[in-house]
């Protein structure tokens, strides 16, 4: 049995079925998983193995057909509406494959957005944006609009956006898929450094070898089940 209060993510017998007409398609079939704070974990597996569905359920973007999810000891799978939105806002950062910045907001406005939702005072927002832009190597580029930034720069902004509100968990979906290997490696190094510096937990869904090489732990999914759970580096917290 797990300690829900101290573990960051706990899933219990997680199942998700999709229905298409009368056909039931199982996407996740009874996943029990514990992810602790400060982990740098890669969720890998072939297409259709259930990686995206599992991330969606863990983050509360989708609801499970069966089972429960606890995040920071809170049953996120049972939250709804504004409570769920606020919980996600305060505890989870997202990095998407296609960056997905708001194109009409500048880099610094994109980063500021979540803090604005949190009601962080303007001066503090500005200060945190300035600092995190420095952390991701984008000093002086805060006023640029997303279309004026390269793919790598946009993904750095996305990382900054995900981290600026200081969530406990960063979920990253194929964050290097649209980047060249050099840029991808640089971004992974930034994330790894931030993981070690801030203690934020990273959970990646990926096919990228570079991500796997940097991960402490690799969870392999196959047909909606955990096929392998490999700890590749010793984490001081574990």
């Amino acid at each position, binding site marked *: 049995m797990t300690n829900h209060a101290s573990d960051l993510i706990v899933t219990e017998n997680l199942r998700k079925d999709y229905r298409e007409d009368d056909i039931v398609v199982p996407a996740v079939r009874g996943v029990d998983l514990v992810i602790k704070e400060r982990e740098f974990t890669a969720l890998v597996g072939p297409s259709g193995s259930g990686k995206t569905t599992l991330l969606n359920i863990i983050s509360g*973007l989708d609801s499970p057909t069966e089972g429960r999810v606890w995040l920071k000891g809170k049953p996120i799978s049972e939250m709804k509406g*504004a409570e769920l939105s606020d919980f*996600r*806002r305060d505890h989870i950062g997202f990095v998407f494959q296609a960056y997905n910045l*708001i*194109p009409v907001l500048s880099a610094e406005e994109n980063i500021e*957005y979540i803090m604005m*939702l949190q009601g962080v005072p303007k001066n503090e927002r500005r200060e945190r944006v300035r600092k995190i832009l420095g952390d991701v190597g984008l000093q002086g580029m805060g006023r640029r609009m997303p279309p004026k930034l390269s793919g790598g720069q946009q993904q750095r902004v996305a990382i900054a*956006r995900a981290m600026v509100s200081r969530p406990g968990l960063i979920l990253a979906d194929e964050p290097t898929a649209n980047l060249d290997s050099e840029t991808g490696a640089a971004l992974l190094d930034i994330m790894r450094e931030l993981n070690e510096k801030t203690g934020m937990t990273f959970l990646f869904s990926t096919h990228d070898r570079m991500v796997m090489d940097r991960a402490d732990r690799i969870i392999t999914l196959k047909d909606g089940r955990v096929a392998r759970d490999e700890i590749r580096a010793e984490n001081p917290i574990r």
Partner: protein
Amino acid sequence: MGFFIKLAWRNIFRNKRRTFIAGIAIAVGLASLIFCDALIRGMKDNLIKSATASFLGEGQIHARRFWETQDAEKTVNNLPTVLDGLRSEKDVELFTLRTMSLGTISSPANVSSVLFVGVNPETEQRLSRVDDVLEEGSYFRDGGKRDMVLGGDLAELLEVELGDRVVVTVSRAGSGDLAQEMFRVSGIFRFHIKEMDGSFAFARIDKAREMLGLDGGAHEIALKFRDNRFALDPGNPFWDTYSREGNEAVSWTALLPELTRVMDMVWVALGFLAVILFGIVVFGIINTLFMSLYERMFEFGVLRAVGTRPSDVRKLIVCEAGALAVLSIVMGSILGFVLTFVLAQTGIDYRGIEFAGTGFSELLYPVLHFSQFIIYPAAVFVFTILVGLYPARAAGRLTVADALRKSL
């Protein structure tokens, strides 16, 4: 809220062409409403002026029931006292006395019924526009006692021209005996109002009194006020003051109730027009907002994923509807102003067309009024916001995982 307004304002310019097309649709609707309002105001002013300044006056005093019976015996009671009172009224700009009698008019070629009106040419000229609409001849200029000014249609019926003789037959007050006099046609007018052009004949009031046996009396006192809004107030004590001792004082609104009713109906028609225009516009707004919503479904998924509440997503869509409304209102107000302003300078020629028993005697000038740029834009804004609630509701209910299905 300020952040969402900024975001909404920028969002509506992401697809400039679509925003412009939707904005123009709303703007044209707004401009149409502004112009129709201005046109109705101009039409109202024109018709009231036609009805009152042509001949009727803004108010009248008669003996009670004269207006209904046209009985020659029913002259204004206590005329000298009434006239003294009117002279001391600061709101009365001028007045004129008339006799009015139904009779017949004949020429060698034809005979017709006529409303034989005795007027004081000097005061009548200042109150009514008979002298302004003369097609031929002059307006009692040569001082001839038997001069007669008659309507163009009546002259055509009688086949008379300037200088020709006509004979008027009326019934004398009291005895009811017939009185007959010969007049000479000195002027022919045309108001483009069928009733007036076809049956009115004016003579000097002294001659008319003599024929009717009135001995200084008058059937009607026509009034003009310093402010034409004076006559629009039925609760004004003026009407009670002069509705005594067997007399009745009435405003033009009572004399021409059909005109008032028609104008009310025109305003109602404008209301229907507004509903139809808004109805057309509503589909444009909904279509634009839904297209924008579906086009950015993934983006809304991202917004929700990073912690934006459903209520904030709804707020954003409503702000986008508001931003579209503001843009449309600016375009529509400019368009409406320019269109109305240009036509208010050039005028629209409806002369000769009868409407509600009267006619347009002058060019119709649409009237710009500040309320047109407050009421209608405010209505468009509120309406657009209300319409925006529907797509906003849909946006608030979207499932985040569905919106993000192709990515995370």
